[in-house]
């Protein structure tokens, strides 16, 4: 069943999809939408979501004492262990179900773990890798805002080169971050029996479809969601969706999925726009653009993105109908 917006609106006209109003994320933040889309899909397909949340923007601003913006079972976590916790929850559920101690055994549960890019790319990577390797049935969703935005824009493994951060500012000596963004999708796709996909809130239908696929997949799933941080990307409050669209059109955030080693590009862009458009739209690259070597750095990024795009097409061709197991 493919969901559409009208169905979902009818379904959720008078109730909240997991996450409720009154959270204190910045105006225009994309992170609550990532959670909303995911939980909405799960609930509309008859699952009861259980949420674990790693420390990050979403966690600290939805659960400020004595308030909580969640109306589903929820577990608070430290930065590094959300995947470990949710795998524990899932195992406990299976153990109790085996002993017949679940009150309503017909109820379907969906175990969600949300983490920011700091809690996924850097700090929580080993627990995530472990949980995926053990094959627990859960869905890990990273909302990637490319930095430690909760504590005020520090550099993370997801920050793109040339971006202004407080720990690697753009100055006379250094052009901001030098290294490329870590390719988390490939890292996760390196595990066996896993469903990995990239999503963006600017493509809601694609988003719902991938969550649905992840829910029905027999094993762990990892979803990387592009989630612009309006505050520290220095864009206007209403630009989160526009920036996401631009990221897809420039090939900066390709939408694809890897299911047991089979690649599939879900959003084909006929001709990629130059990545410079994406960079110029954001204030965090303003200081980079002032530097004399700006074109060189952007050129390197452009080359990387073009090659990655070509590589994806080759992989799609080569792995078609050839799952690893």
């Amino acid at each position, binding site marked *: 069943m493919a969901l559409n917006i009208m169905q979902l*609106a*009818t379904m959720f006209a008078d109730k909240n999809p997991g*996450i*409720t*109003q009154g959270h204190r*994320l910045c*105006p225009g933040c994309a992170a609550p939408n990532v959670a909303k889309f995911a939980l909405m899909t799960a609930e509309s397909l008859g699952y009861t979501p259980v949420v674990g949340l790693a420390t990050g923007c979403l966690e600290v601003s939805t659960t400020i004492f004595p308030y909580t913006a*969640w109306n589903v079972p929820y577990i608070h976590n430290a930065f590094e262990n959300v995947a470990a916790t949710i795998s524990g929850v899932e195992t406990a559920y299976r153990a109790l179900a085996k002993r017949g101690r679940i009150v309503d055994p017909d109820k379907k549960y969906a175990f969600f773990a949300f983490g920011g890019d700091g809690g996924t790319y850097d700090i929580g990577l080993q627990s995530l890798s472990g949980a995926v390797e053990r094959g627990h049935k859960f869905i890990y969703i990273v909302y990637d805002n490319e930095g430690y935005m909760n504590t005020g824009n520090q550099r993370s493994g997801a920050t793109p080169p040339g971006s202004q951060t407080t720990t690697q500012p753009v100055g006379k000596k250094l052009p901001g971050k030098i290294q490329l963004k870590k390719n988390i999708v490939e890292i996760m796709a390196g595990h066996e029996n896993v469903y990995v996909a990239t999503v963006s809130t600017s493509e809601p239908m694609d988003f719902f479809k991938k969550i649905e696929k992840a829910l029905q997949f027999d094993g762990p799933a990892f979803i990387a969601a592009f989630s612009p941080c309006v505050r520290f990307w220095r864009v206007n409050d209403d630009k989160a*969706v526009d920036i996401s669209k631009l990221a897809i059109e420039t090939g900066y955030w390709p939408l694809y999925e890897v299911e047991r080693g089979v690649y599939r590009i879900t959003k084909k862009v006929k001709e990629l726009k130059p990545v410079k458009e994406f960079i110029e739209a954001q204030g965090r690259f303003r200081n980079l653009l002032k530097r004399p070597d700006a074109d060189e750095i952007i050129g390197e990024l452009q080359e990387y993105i073009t090659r990655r795009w070509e590589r994806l097409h080759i992989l799609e061709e080569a792995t078609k109908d050839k799952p690893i197991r």
Partner: protein
Amino acid sequence: MADLKGWKELAIGGVIDKPSTAKEYQTGTWRVIRPVYKPENCINCMFCWLYCPDQAVEIEVVDGKPKMKGFNYYYCKGCGLCANVCPKSNDKLPEEKRAIVMKPETEFQD
């Protein structure tokens, strides 16, 4: 929040025993620009409802179809995302033909 509780009245470990208590918290005070809904121009595409990060767009179901009702200003933070994603509110349209118009909060009395 009504009154602050002392440590003796609080649950052990600061456990919050009720779900979605954040609904009591008014985030509408953050707003500097206000979305104003014009029902005559709306096509009920539900994009504003889908994208509102604060779920401040109120809808109702009429004859099995969702209809936009208006904004809940108790929660709306005034980000303007609804007007940006609205197909009937892009910059090319004149203001009287848009379904959502962003206006500065200073124009309103309440």
